[in-house]
């Protein structure tokens, strides 16, 4: 009993440690004074300032655009790659998979500078295109790793059965294989999308000076010191994550209930 109470207190303290910084950030986004030393009354002016900031708007636009395009491209290339790798001979497969693991295992900063060197070497101007190529590059391995397990679970006779029943290989692929591995593809696409939204280090080295995403914008603002508009931005981002996770949770629990019935 005593141990139980102790456990609860410990867990509570850890949660305080995790949430206190976020709570303070949110509270002070409504503070009327620029200094955080005192509370000068409620205001929404930091939010107004945030919405008026053209740099933030541009960064948000690039973040979402790159996340969408890079997750689509990497899902297509990654799924195709997984299917191809699945039917490779053993040593080729392990060679390709080892190289696929490299961007995941390598420190982000090494991936970032190596891509930067490549782009400068190939005389690709650092900007939107280079950042997009970099995002596709670090997303593909995650798509492959999400699709591969589904391919391993796949009953290979299903495809042969479809062919025996007169389906063309393309038809059999779209009607039999693709629906079976769809959950893996969707997981991979979502993973790619969130990783791209959240990326800082690799974007930082490959974006050049003209293009920024939200992370780069936050970094350059935070480097100059504390700024209440970042608090406002954090609050909005935290709220959107919360709402998004809530919806996903609701949906999955509904699915589970429907499966049970």
């Amino acid at each position, binding site marked *: 009993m005593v141990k*139980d109470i102790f*456990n609860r207190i*410990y*867990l509570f303290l*850890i*949660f305080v*440690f*995790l949430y206190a*910084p*976020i709570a*303070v*950030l949110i509270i*002070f986004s409504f503070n009327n004074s620029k200094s*955080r*030393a*005192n509370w000068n009354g409620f205001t929404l002016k930091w939010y107004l300032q945030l919405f008026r900031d053209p740099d933030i708007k541009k960064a948000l636009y690039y973040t979402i655009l790159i996340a969408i395009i890079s997750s689509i491209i990497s899902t297509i*290339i990654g799924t*195709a*790659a*997984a*299917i191809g*790798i699945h*039917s*490779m001979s053993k040593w080729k497969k392990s060679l*390709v998979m080892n*190289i*696929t693991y490299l961007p995941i*295992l390598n*420190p982000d*900063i*090494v991936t970032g*500078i*190596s891509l930067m*060197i*490549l782009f400068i*070497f190939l005389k690709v101007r650092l900007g939107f295109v280079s950042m997009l190529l970099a995002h*596709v*590059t670090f997303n*593909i391995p995650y798509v*492959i790793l999400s699709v591969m397990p589904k391919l391993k679970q796949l009953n290979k006779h299903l*495809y042969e059965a479809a062919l025996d029943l007169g389906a063309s290989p393309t038809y059999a692929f779209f009607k039999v*294989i693709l629906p079976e591995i769809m959950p893996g593809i969707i*997981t991979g696409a979502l*993973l790619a999308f969130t990783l791209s939204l*959240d990326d*800082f*280090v690799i974007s930082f080295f490959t974006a050049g000076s003209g293009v920024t995403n*939200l*992370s780069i914008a*936050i*970094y350059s603002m*935070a*480097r100059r*010191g*504390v700024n209440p508009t970042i608090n406002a931005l*954090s609050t909005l*981002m*935290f709220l959107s*994550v919360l709402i998004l*996770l809530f919806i996903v949770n609701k949906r999955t629990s509904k699915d589970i209930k429907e499966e049970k019935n």
Partner: protein
Amino acid sequence: MKKKWISYSYVLWMTVFIVVPLVLVLFFSFMSSTDGDFSFTLEHYRRFMDFKEPYIKVLWRSVLLAGISTIICLVLGYPVAMILASKKMSKKSFLMFLFVLPMWMNFLLRTYAWMTLLEKNGFINMILSFFNIGPLQLLYNEGAVILGMVYNFLPFMVLPIYSVLRKIDHSVIEAAEDLGADQFTVFRKIIFPLSLPGVFSGISMVFMPAVTTFVISRLLGGGQFMLIGNLIERQFLLAGDWNFGSAVSIVMMLIILISMAVMSKYDKEHEGGGLW
């Protein structure tokens, strides 16, 4: 289903964007300079290892700070994983959700949050001033960097340990108790050894991002606080010394890959639960 050709676009992509860039980094690290003069040299590696230069100290400081943060994460995180995995806890999935939630927030914002707490007229100094203490210089020192690392990477320690602990067969623990083992012996002889794969993957998942970070040290450590990540960033973006930067990157990559290999040797069962 023989569709090898379908992966050729990826093999091409992989060669151009994964293999060639790393080969370029390796190439530049052995060249005397980037423009024109492509003669082989080990000068950049020698300069990095030279005790008269500050660089080897930077490497040592990075490993030290990351190591301390990893130990703190393990000490703080292991009990959390145990409490969350214990059967008695009600609303387990909700608590787990609460634990993972801050991780979904942007990494830079989580680090920035500590800037607002620790700065000179920040929240902590504001509370301290009620007790007539301070203002203390809390930001821009080693402690702040370690704090930032622990705060950002603690979930990476808890999750793998939690997923291994949950899989432990409870009858093994009951058997030990039936045979007269007290709680501490059960933990030392059964629970802890069985959770080792999770501990090892937790250690590598905290240590690696911590040792390579340049954001936490830049925002919480201030300009003078150089870790190896800052050193690399500086060489490429400010100093423009690609050759030396490449050599440092190769050293860092080797450290990471070697420690990964060592960790996976201990983690033979491959039971360490991943993040996803």
